[in-house]
């Protein structure tokens, strides 16, 4: 197989020289150690467009570092996955590239097997107990700790209680400590994120490959249908909005809710209404935690949640009220989904004639059903609930630094690395302690302005799909399932790199199959969640990603196209649940397609064609 561009040869974008300091030093491709340089050249590095449609703000890279550590450590040090080590990370012009690492000496693989069997075996045997009674408790605990963390400006003088209680510690110390706690909670959260995930993906590889041997070409949608059927947490927020819509009708306040008012106005009106108050109580109950659902992936500080923009859930409640009044049935028909799951599973099984095949069927489907609840639900705890709270806490820190003149705007905090924020807080605290102006206000605004300029240049750059040298075999489960790296995918990347930018047919876009079906319609490109209300019946939604929080809109659209995601990504899972033809991971769909274009899409092959420009 041909090679991609050597990672050391990627040119720096003019005017961004020195960009490396925005990110951790170990993320750079360098030639200063010949051994490391040779390793880098001989690995395949692919751009993680699945998670990151845009270049990284320095602060937001923390999740990437956390999963770099968590995912890799579970493969290599916890489970001892026999043939696979971790996933390595680098950053090029603001874009994250990743690379699966194999076990260097194949003779070591058999020695790793007994360890793997013992360790993974223990988790599989005790899966439900470890997940339900251990994992969920740990996650809830760190979320509670996160909620309790609050940041405020340093006081002019310490409160008298500090003295009288003999506390012996000051507010400067508290601020530094709380910032450390904040980052530490984030890191813990991402440790837990992977506690079951590597094994879940190993199971999914087994499930997909076994079923593809039994029924070559079996649609992905069918595989998820057969392993689904429980009540995923990710659907809970949507269910709450349906409940609130029904309640409004029941209480007779539906007309009130439907009045075209902004969220804050509506909530005030409801509070003043005797019956409205009752509805409001339920609304408030639903908010925690269910409105902590992100309208994006939750990976970026720019992602809003329902709680940070209440107009979104309220607009959805209105849509639900109108649908209910028009006699539509809303919600996820769990019983029906379970019945269909059992029906199609037994139909497939009945086609198998050999005992060995039936056993393979039972073993791999059994495993898939065991792990699926975790595989789907952990996202709500981590990327939605935890992240939503986390971003809000970092914003509190941003305000403190902005108030102290370090930033022109509290949102500038995203242009600092997380360790630089700690440094800035030290600067602030020592200045506060000594009664001297800190250096920050003269240092950071200039640096941030430069970084903003660099970031804009990064945005205009198109990262190559892959760099380096493809291996003969991929054994790393995430690389196979989540990113779907196969010969075909590599071929597509190679074609792309040969054609260069703008090569090939500009009206044909190749993505990954998300949810089956071929449809044609006018495109509606959504740049922000606020534009959801503009969606019209029969349109094809084009967005960076979709989230379960968009579900109420799914009933009216004909299909969905996203920039990021693989066949197992959340958007794909949700769209399959709604039977909505979907193509994911197009990379630049939102840039190439314009609202009003006539678009044809095939959810089975991942091909999108622009038939007619608006």
């Amino acid at each position: 197989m041909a090679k991609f561009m050597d990672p050391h040869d990627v040119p720096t974008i003019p005017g961004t020289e020195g960009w490396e300091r925005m990110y951790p030093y170990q993320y750079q491709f360098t030639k200063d150690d010949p051994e490391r340089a040779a390793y880098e050249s001989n690995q395949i590095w692919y751009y993680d467009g699945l998670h990151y449609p845009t270049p990284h703000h320095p602060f937001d890279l923390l999740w990437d570092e956390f999963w770099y550590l968590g995912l890799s450590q579970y493969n290599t040090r916890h489970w001892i996955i026999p043939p696979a080590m971790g996933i390595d990370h680098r950053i090029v012009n603001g874009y994250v590239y990743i690379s699966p690492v194999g076990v260097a000496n194949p003779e070591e693989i058999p020695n790793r097997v007994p360890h793997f069997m013992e360790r993974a075996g223990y988790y599989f045997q005790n899966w439900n107990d470890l997940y339900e009674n251990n994992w969920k408790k740990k996650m809830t605990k760190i979320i509670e700790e996160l909620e309790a963390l609050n940041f405020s400006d340093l006081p002019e003088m310490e409160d008298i209680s500090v003295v009288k209680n003999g506390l012996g510690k000051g507010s400067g110390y508290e601020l530094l400590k709380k910032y450390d706690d904040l980052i530490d909670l984030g890191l813990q959260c991402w440790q837990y994120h992977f506690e079951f995930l590597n094994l879940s993906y190993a199971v999914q590889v087994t499930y997909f490959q076994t079923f593809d041997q039994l029924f070559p070409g079996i649609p992905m949608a069918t595989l998820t249908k057969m392993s689904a059927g429980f009540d995923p947490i990710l659907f809970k927020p949507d269910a709450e909005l349906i409940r609130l819509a029904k309640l409004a009708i029941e209480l007779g306040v539906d007309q009130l809710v439907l009045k075209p008012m902004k969220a804050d106005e509506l909530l005030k009106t409801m509070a003043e209404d005797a019956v409205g108050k009752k509805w409001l109580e339920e609304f408030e109950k639903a908010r925690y935690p269910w409105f902590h659902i992100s309208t994006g992936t939750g990976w970026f500080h720019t992602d809003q949640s329902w709680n940070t923009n209440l107009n979104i859930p309220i607009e959805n409640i209105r849509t639900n009220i109108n649908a209910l009044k028009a006699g539509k049935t809303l919600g996820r028909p769990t019983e029906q989904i379970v019945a269909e799951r059992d029906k199609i599973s037994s139909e497939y099984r009945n086609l198998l004639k050999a005992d060995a095949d039936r056993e393979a069927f039972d073993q791999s489907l059994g495993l898939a059903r065991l792990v699926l609840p975790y595989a789907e639900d952990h996202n709500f705890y981590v990327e939605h609930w935890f992240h939503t709270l986390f971003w809000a806490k970092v914003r509190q820190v941003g305000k403190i630094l902005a108030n102290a003149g370090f930033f022109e705007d509290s949102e500038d905090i995203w242009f600092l690395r997380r360790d630089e924020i700690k440094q800035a807080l030290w600067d602030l605290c020592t200045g506060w302690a000594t009664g001297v102006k800190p250096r920050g206000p003269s240092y950071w605004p200039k640096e941030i302005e430069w970084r903003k300029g660099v970031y804009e240049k990064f945005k205009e750059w198109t990262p190559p799909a892959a760099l380096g040298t493809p291996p003969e075999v991929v054994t790393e489960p995430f690389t196979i399932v989540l990113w779907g790296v196969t010969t075909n995918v590599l071929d597509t990347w190679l074609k792309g790199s040969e054609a260069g930018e703008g090569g090939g047919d500009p009206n044909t876009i190749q993505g990954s199959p998300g949810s089956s079906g071929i449809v044609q319609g006018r495109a509606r490109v959504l740049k922000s969640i606020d534009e959801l209300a503009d969606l019209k019946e029969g349109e094809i939604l084009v967005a960076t990603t979709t989230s379960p929080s968009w579900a109420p809109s799914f009933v009216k659209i004909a299909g969905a196209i996203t920039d990021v995601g693989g066949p197992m990504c959340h958007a794909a899972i949700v769209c399959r649940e709604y039977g909505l033809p979907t193509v994911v991971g197009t990379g630049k769909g939102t840039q190439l397609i314009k609202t009003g274009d006539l678009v044809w899409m095939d959810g089975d092959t991942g091909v999108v064609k622009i038939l007619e420009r608006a």
Partner: protein
Amino acid sequence: MVPKEERLTIWYDEMDGNDFNFVGKKNANLGEMMKAGIPVSPGFAVTIHCMDKFTADTGIKEKLSKLITTSGEVSFEVAKPASDEAIRLIQTTEMPDDIRNDIVSNYRKLCEKCGVENVPVAVRSSGAVSMPGQMETYLNIRGEKDLSDYIRLCWTSAYNVEAIMYRMNKNIPFLFNIGVGIPKMVNSRVSGVIFTINPINGDPSKISIDASYGLGEAVVSGFVTPDTYLIDKIVMEPVKTVIGSKEVMCVYKEGGSDIVQVPVPEEKRGVACLTRQEMLELARIGKLIEDYYGKPYDIEFGIDADMPFPSNVIILQVRPESVWSKKEVTAKTEAKKDPMDRLLGTLLTGVRLK
């Protein structure tokens, strides 16, 4: 209502497999398929009783009965002149009005049903006992006059030399009546073959459809590369579509039954010849046929340009699948002692890149 044994014509959708004594085997099979929900081309049968009534009412039955009076085995020298005379008698005797009217009124109803004036039909013999020489089929017959002429021509096949010798050798009497089938000619916009398994690898969870423009000969004889549609049989979702080159198609020569090849217009070659709706309907019918007969089937179909969906989807011929059905059952997966062992096996194999 006239009892079935006295009727002169019976529609396909009124009969079933047990009616072969009234309409002949071929007709009864079509009736049986229709009853099972398998869409065959619409039409009707001219009953065995009708041929009997024709010979009796016109007085030729008497004459026929005198042509060979012995029973049991006959020689060619005896059979040949009797055959010649019987054929002459049937062909030169006008159809009585009541018989003609019955047939013609059915034909008019068929024209109406299909929305085609003087709809082309096939005229096919259908005996209650299968015998050689009785395989007559006349294609593309149009109009009331031709229809009654060809029905009489078809009747003559009961008195072919081979037929006479064959049946008398089996101790069946010389006097013999057959049924005739009158199905609408399928005006195939598209035709092809359905396999109720994937013929490439024997996968029983798929239905495979090969389809191309025009008559089925192009696909069956393999002188075009057809479109291939692979559909998951359980969830009934298309899995894979490969568009074939489809450069030529077979059509009937104007007004006749000869088949000629003509080029497919350039703009129709690169696109799917079946609509998604038609493809899924064909898959549904394929599954129905497999379930009905309880084994994989190989099915010829046509999409009739004269009719609206879904009545345009017509099954022409069915037969049991013969390749994979005969193979011994072998496991496609490796045996593993437990789920962990299977998981380990997958991890160690990985995904091979070329």
